[in-house]
């Protein structure tokens, strides 16, 4: 029987690698994305993946202080996505009034 802590450490390392790969892929869409909406979506996904990455770091290191940072990043990510979507909408309305 393998030790549970050993399995957990291995799983957290693999998860960190997978999440970093996922963030790289999202960066491809952020650089390439044809319109503003695609870029806002890519930024939103980056913050969600960052929450997951910090969670995996919490599991790996056992430092639960990181969890507060994850919650703060989730808050900021949601607010920034809402603000950017409002900006996209306001740009359209401004264009219509001209």
């Amino acid at each position, binding site marked *: 029987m393998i030790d549970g802590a050993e399995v957990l450490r291995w799983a957290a390392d693999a998860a960190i690698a997978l*999440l970093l790969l996922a963030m790289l892929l999202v960066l491809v869409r952020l650089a390439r994305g044809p319109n503003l*909406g695609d870029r806002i979506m890519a930024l939103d996904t980056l913050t*969600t993946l960052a929450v997951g990455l910090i969670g*995996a770091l919490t599991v790996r290191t056992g430092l639960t202080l990181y969890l507060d940072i994850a919650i703060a990043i989730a808050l900021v990510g949601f607010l920034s*996505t809402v603000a950017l979507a409002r900006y996209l909408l306001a740009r359209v309305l401004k264009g219509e009034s001209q």
Partner: protein
Amino acid sequence: MIGQLLQYLAAVAVLGGAVFGLLAAIGIVRLPDLYMRLHAASKAGAVGAGLILIAVALISTDGAVVLRATLGLIFLLLSTPVAAHLLARAAYKAGELPIVTTTIEEIDGQP
């Protein structure tokens, strides 16, 4: 013994969450238009981060940490669909149309 079991469960949840995050990223890169990409990002991404937060809650022995992880999970599950909906609505009002292969035009034959 129950601690070992929780550690195994947490390992499965961490790996599953990371795989869901990777699937969301692959969907974002490969799907053809914004609405399909939002579908991949908002659902798979939220489940990925949520599973990892569940794993944190499983292995911690401190009640405050469990509470914080659960609150983070609830906030994530509440906020991600709202953000995706707002973004899709704004993009549609901005004139971003779904790609033509998602509509059916049966009279002219050409989609």
